[in-house]
């Protein structure tokens, strides 16, 4: 009897310890997320600074605070190169090898081919700064920025209040930007203004003097210049100032805050009024202390997107991607570093851009 009892006890103990270690090892298994973005190539440095680093920074913060649900977060970064095939290769590698439950992506031509793969594998696609409206048609995608068509009316309204009668547009050939340009033109003309010139440049261009010569001949009150990268935005502003358009105001988007424009210097962005999102100064200070440079709007959006994902995992109580996705879609209000978002049934946040102006090299709130 006694031997049997002790045997039984031993078995029970062994079984219990097995269950315990399994539970424990599960608890210690990290939560795996991936980043699939073009970290090499033409804008690699910019992508790393404003798209990859914020996610890694957020993971570092949450891990230092004890992780989520007692588990650490593991971020794996893969280079997509700038083509659809490379984007899919990077994502499938992250899914198969690293077993991620969510992926952070950027840029329309890369993200749209990734979406079907992510949907089939039930991986949440977080495209923090992507403005293409089609993104959130997918039931697995989330963004943390207003769509492109929301910027135009805000600019048109400000231009109208400043008494601008005519405006020209100089924009990069890019899908989201074309939407912003159209929404601006429609809103501006509705308010009684007139678009007297509309020129574009390609992402890899270095010369837009011919276009500016033509825009100058139209003698506009205002110019709306819009680009998707700091480098080309800097060139545009520099050449606008060289072309001596004699416009009364320059309007633009958040890329005027990019370090490339500061690096060119010479006050080319002075007085520019632009759409952006506010960045919480406490976050900016924390980020600077951790990473050594100031976050821009895109960095803040990607940080917010990462933190939203973490909050949703916490709220769902699991890292099961379907449950986390549902939690995000019904998240309700979310207080981010770029302002108050609201998710009601999809990955499309409810948030509107604000206006800022550059005064003495500083980015300050715009007051008409």
């Amino acid at each position: 009897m006694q031997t049997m009892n002790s045997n039984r006890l031993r078995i029970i103990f062994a079984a219990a310890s097995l269950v315990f270690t399994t539970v424990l090892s599960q608890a210690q298994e990290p939560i795996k997320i991936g980043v699939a973005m073009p970290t090499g190539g033409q804008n690699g440095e910019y992508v790393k600074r404003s798209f990859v680093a914020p996610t890694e920074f957020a993971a570092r913060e949450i891990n230092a605070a004890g992780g989520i649900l007692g588990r650490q977060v593991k971020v794996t970064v893969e280079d997509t190169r700038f083509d659809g095939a490379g984007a899919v290769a990077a994502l499938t590698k992250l899914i198969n090898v690293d077993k991620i439950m969510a992926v952070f992506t950027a840029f329309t031509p890369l993200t749209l081919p990734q979406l079907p793969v992510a949907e089939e594998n039930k991986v949440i696609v977080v495209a923090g700064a992507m403005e293409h409206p089609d993104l959130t048609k997918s039931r697995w995608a989330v963004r943390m920025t207003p769509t492109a068509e929301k910027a135009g009316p805000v600019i048109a309204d400000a231009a109208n209040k400043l008494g601008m009668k005519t405006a020209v547009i100089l924009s990069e050939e890019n899908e989201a930007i074309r939407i912003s340009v159209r929404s601006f033109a429609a809103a501006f003309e509705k308010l009684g203004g007139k678009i007297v010139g509309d020129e574009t440049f390609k992402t890899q261009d270095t010369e837009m003097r011919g276009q500016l010569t033509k825009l100058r001949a139209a003698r506009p009150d205002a110019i709306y210049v819009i680009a998707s990268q700091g480098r080309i935005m800097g060139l545009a502003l520099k050449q606008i100032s060289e072309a001596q358009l004699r416009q009364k105001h320059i309007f633009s988007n958040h890329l005027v805050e990019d370090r490339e424009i500061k690096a060119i210097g010479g006050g080319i962005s002075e007085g520019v009024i632009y759409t952006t999102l506010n960045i919480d100064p406490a976050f900016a200070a924390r980020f600077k202390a951790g990473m050594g440079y100031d976050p821009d709007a895109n960095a803040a959006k990607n940080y917010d997107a990462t933190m939203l994902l973490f909050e949703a995992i916490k709220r769902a109580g699991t890292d099961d991607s379907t449950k986390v996705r549902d939690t995000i879609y019904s998240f309700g209000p979310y207080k981010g570093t770029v302002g108050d978002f609201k998710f009601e049934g999809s990955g499309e946040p409810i948030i509107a851009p604000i206006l800022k102006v550059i005064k003495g090299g500083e980015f300050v709130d715009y007051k008409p």
Partner: protein
Amino acid sequence: MEYFQHLLIMVLIYACLTVSLDLNIGHAGILSFGHASFYGIGAYTTAILTVYAGLDWFSAMVLAFATGAIIAALIGLPTLRLGGDYFILALFGFSLIVTSLIINMEWLTNGPFGIRGVPRPSIGPYQVQSGYGMLGFIAIMTAFIFFVHWRFASSPMKAALHAVRDDESVAMSLGINVVRTKITVFALGGGFAALCGAMGAFYFRFVSADSYGLQTIILLWAMLFVGGNCSLLGAFVGPAVLMLFPEMFRFIGGQGWDIGHIQEALYGLLLILLMMFRPQGLVGNKVGLRT
């Protein structure tokens, strides 16, 4: 494993592109710098016909082949009589025009937004889904395209082509209609490239103008010469090496930031070393190419 499926599918699509480029460059000596454009034309034709016109996948694919071939014939008609360098430039210009038209003819191509939602092929009630089904579909298409090229490589047409490639005046004296031969083979190359575009559109379900530019042309040329021209095996080996070689670095590089640039550097070095030590390509025939 979607990862290996994807890589295999990409190698197969690029193998088909390479073998059709070889038809032009290797067999006929037509230095086509517009091959990526025919690839793009095929992808866009497929996307427009299936998504906007609601056509079934098979008709769309056949029409993509026809569109590629017809446009190639039309562009080949005035340009194929140009000398080598001028022909390269003419097709270089053609490819820039195609990219620009795709971006600007928004009513047809949806401009810079690209077209999404291209359907997957279906055979009877069976709808090809992602993964093995798609791999199977691409493999069958590849087998078909390689079979056609293999038949060609053992046909009398090949001898005529090589005669044209090696010396046009000799070919003429042999009674070969040089211009017609060249236009035919150029149109075929364009058609097959367009077919590859259709395959790519079915696979990615999304087309956008970025994928068919200069980078792709240079990649295709590199694949052809790494594998070796006038060789069916070479058309496999080139894409396999250039697609899989960079992927290796994902596993030995760990979490390094600058893996992308190291990849590029080694890729460049590989091209130089190959041309030095295996100029006929890894498995190409010794004769190489006359330009």
